[in-house]
């Protein structure tokens, strides 16, 4: 056997094996360096996979050489190859970024556990994305969720509310996972298989109560995981009180992976032969996506905690993704996939900028941002540029997302949705503008807890600016995002079987 043939399993195996090794390392710098190295390795493998899929088509890997549908299959097509690259790429940047931030915000006795949990979380997210087996999705989803609960709770050193936030998330997340597994169970009852491709074949023509119930359970279960409005209640506290590096990582990856799973089930497992899929698009995803876009954005506008503001903004941005996929067109799905990638870039950079501010001021209240343009100019500009990206200003990825989404909306005849999309961007402009004005136009405080702020250390600035640069680069070059997402969307539509 050669390495190339085993490449498909490596993105999961590498962090999975590396995680327990972290615990054996001495406290201090070592766990961080090890975890960073692993995350970079995982990213390199993912990039290799993207290029393989791009050139040679779908990769099917049989775990332990057990042939599907009995054995577990890892199945990588364009869509999940992109998500793999995204998750591991964000991982590579955030892991490198984390050291100083974690040093400050997490109890030093827990630091080895912290990097171990981060690697397990990465394993879970990669696993969810890569697998072609429905039950395997559940397993990996739980691996990532459980480690996330622990990671959020580690924010307790800075703020004890992290514990209740983690507990709330645990309760909600477990309900979601339970719903999801019930749904999988019902599908298994109906078809006797767990392999997604096989499920798709065997579900054909089976439009009965059991399949419908299974579908409903799965949508609600994943809806909880991806924080679909109004199932988002766990998210704001979790993102706010988690250690800043964790917020940056999960905000950029966890919900995106969940959206990917939703797309996978809608398009690859069920497909448009089922009338209820079309109904779910029209009567659930479209209105909930629109409602989330507006209500969460409006709530974000009135937050005095910048992390919480960004958290609500994430709920709103998930609305865009749901909106895109609910159009059930190639353009809409492309827009959704592009926004999954782009939103990760902008939100990752924004949360990292906040992490820098927390590192120097100890607070993520908007008051701590006053006059930072003078004290922390590099961080300020990172925040402003990624904020402009979130608003959708041209030459940033946010604009590319908006462009795809708007063309999809017009092309699908949902012209009212197009205007709602831009209206919601305007609310984003207001809440980002509030923070930007604070940073740019206020005088920095001369006394009080925030007076001593100075520029964040290089070890944080460089990874953050890598993401900011990605925001600009992919804002003018779309070969890797737009074109590949379009290919992924076409392949998904083909399996799903035309319009619903």
């Amino acid at each position, binding site marked *: 056997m050669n390495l190339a043939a085993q490449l498909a399993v490596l993105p999961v195996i590498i962090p999975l094996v590396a995680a327990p090794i972290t615990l054996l390392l001495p406290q201090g710098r070592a766990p961080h360096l090890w975890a960073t190295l692993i995350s970079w390795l995982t990213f390199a493998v993912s990039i290799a996979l993207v290029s393989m899929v791009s050139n040679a088509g779908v990769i099917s890997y049989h775990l332990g050489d057990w042939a599907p549908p009995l054995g577990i299959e890892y199945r990588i097509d364009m869509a999940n190859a992109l998500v793999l690259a995204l998750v591991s790429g964000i991982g590579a940047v955030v892991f490198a970024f984390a050291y100083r931030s974690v040093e400050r915000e997490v109890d030093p006795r827990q630091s080895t556990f912290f990097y171990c949990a981060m690697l397990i979380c990465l394993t879970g997210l990669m696993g969810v994305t890569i697998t072609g087996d429905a039950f395997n999705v559940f397993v990996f989803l739980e691996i990532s969720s459980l480690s996330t609960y622990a990671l959020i709770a580690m924010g307790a050193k800075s703020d004890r509310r992290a514990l209740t936030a983690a507990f709330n998330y645990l309760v909600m997340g477990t309900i979601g996972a339970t719903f999801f597994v019930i749904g999988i169970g019902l599908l298994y009852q109906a078809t006797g298989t767990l392999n997604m491709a096989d499920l798709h074949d065997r579900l054909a023509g089976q439009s009965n109560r059991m399949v419908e119930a299974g579908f409903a359970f799965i949508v609600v279960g994943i809806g909880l995981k991806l924080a679909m409005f109004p199932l988002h209640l766990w998210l704001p506290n979790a993102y706010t009180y988690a250690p800043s590096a964790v917020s940056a990582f999960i905000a950029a990856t966890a919900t995106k992976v969940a959206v990917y799973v939703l797309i996978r089930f809608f398009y690859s497992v069920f497909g448009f032969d089922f009338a209820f899929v079309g109904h779910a698009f029209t009567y659930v995803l479209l209105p909930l996506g629109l409602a989330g876009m507006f209500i969460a954005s409006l709530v974000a506008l009135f937050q005095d905690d910048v992390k919480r503001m960004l958290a609500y903004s994430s709920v709103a941005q998930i609305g865009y993704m749901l909106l895109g996929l609910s159009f059930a067109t190639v353009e809409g799905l492309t827009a959704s996939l592009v926004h999954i990638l782009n939103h990760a870039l902008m939100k990752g950079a924004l949360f990292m900028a906040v992490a820098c501010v927390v590192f120097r001021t100890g607070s993520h209240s908007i008051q701590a941002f006053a006059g930072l343009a003078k004290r922390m100019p590099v961080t300020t500009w990172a925040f402003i540029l990624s904020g402009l990206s979130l608003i959708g200003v041209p030459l940033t990825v946010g604009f590319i997302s908006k462009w795809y989404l708007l063309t999809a909306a017009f092309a699908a005849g949902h012209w009212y949705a197009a205007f709602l999309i831009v209206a919601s961007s*305007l609310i984003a402009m207001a809440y980002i503008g509030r923070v930007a*004005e604070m940073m740019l136009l206020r005088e920095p405080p001369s006394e009080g807890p925030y007076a001593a702020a100075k520029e964040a250390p290089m070890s944080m600035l460089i990874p953050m600016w890598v993401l900011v640069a990605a925001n600009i680069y992919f804002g003018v070059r*779309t070969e890797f995002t737009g074109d590949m997402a379009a290919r992924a969307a076409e392949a998904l539509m083909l399996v799903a079987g035309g319009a619903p």
Partner: protein
Amino acid sequence: MISPGLAIPLALWVPLLGCLAIWLLDKSPNLREAATLITGAILFALTVTIFIAVSTGQRPGFQALEVIDGLPIAFQAEPLGALFAVIASGLWLVTSVYSIGYMRAGNEKHQTRFYMSFAVAISAAIGVAFAANLFTLFIFYEVLTLSTFPLVTHKGDEAARRGGRIYLGVLMATSIGLFLPAIVWTYVITGSTDFVEGGLLAQHVDAAGPIVGILLGLYAFGIGKAALMPVHPWLPNAMVAPTPVSAFLHAVAVVKAGVFAILKIVVYIFGIDLLKDTGASIPFMWIAAGSILLASAIAMNQDNLKARLAYSTVSQLSYITLGAMLATQMGVMGGAMQIAAHALGKMTLFMCAGAIYVAHHKTLISEMRGLGRVMPFTFGAFFLGAMSIVGLPPMAGSWPKFFLMWGAADAGQLAIIVVLIISSIVNVVYLLSIPVQAFYMNPAQDGAKPQGAGGAFIDWGALKEAPILCIAPPIFTAAGVIALFFFIDPLYRFLLPLVGGG
């Protein structure tokens, strides 16, 4: 001599390099200002090169990169853009001289940031001028908005913050909320956003559909920089900026980028014939006419000189929108000439307002009575600029009014001619009264009725003018207003290809 094809990318990059140089020379103000002036001179030479090339029928351009299929960042010079670029870069040079005098006399803070923002803004204005498609235009339009924000909020106090919030809020809200969807819609209909002679949409839309009117509305109000009522509030609020900013950006670069975009969209995206055939532009013609009269009425009640000039700008900009919406060749011609004439005239007025502020710290018109006798040059230039805005010969401003009336007659809209006449009369009242009072009345006394001055006139021994750098630029542009009156024929022939002639 640089080839015109190379001149366009250079014109975009030179101001950015200038910006870098300004930043590096932060510590030595004289060198820093030299960097601004040299950049300005090079830029002006480049735009003139392009202008000459366009006048000989060339259409130089290049494509930078393709972002999404059918969506390249590309540039091409055509008459309207070349004209706008020459005006913007030429007047930037004039403003830079003026800024040096103004900023130093006022001992303003953050001067380096000020000149840097200016340089980025002019680069963006050049980008707008040479954009070959809507997408490119939109990019530079947004860059222009963002780069001028630090200029509007320059003073950094609460009033500046408030003005800046409204400025950015209105311009971004309209551009993202209306302009962007309009561009996307155009792209979805036609698969392109290119500026095409005869009109991009003219080849695609069934001319009877209401879609033309809706799209035109999205463009007309989405381009907030054109300040068509009711999306004008950003303009008066931007007057918190230092006067050179008001003079250049809010009389020339920013507002002209707006009306330029409207003209360009009407000519190259819709096509004059499409609008004429569908009548889609008639409602907007009336809105523009209403905007002209209403803004003039508001201007009359402003005692703050800059506020009065701001509302006068809102009114004058609507002339250009009106010209576009008349959907006749002469209307478009009038609109294009108004871009040039109004830029020169209004810039003169703003620079005079700044000179008055620098020399006497007066901002209210009621306090300026009698001031002409100690500032004869400033008020003399003001008088010439005001004459041009009103539209009296031998000032450049008379030509656009002439062509607009011609255009209105062509379109059979005789009521529009009446609107134009009323507007000119109102302009006489609120603009010409200022220098007249400054020359012929005594300074306002507490509670006393303003009095005629009688025999005493200019006291040459007791002049109290602003520094020479603040007074020479407005005199220069005032002279330009007269010169342009006599050189209107070359301009007319230069612009003819725009309306399908030449």
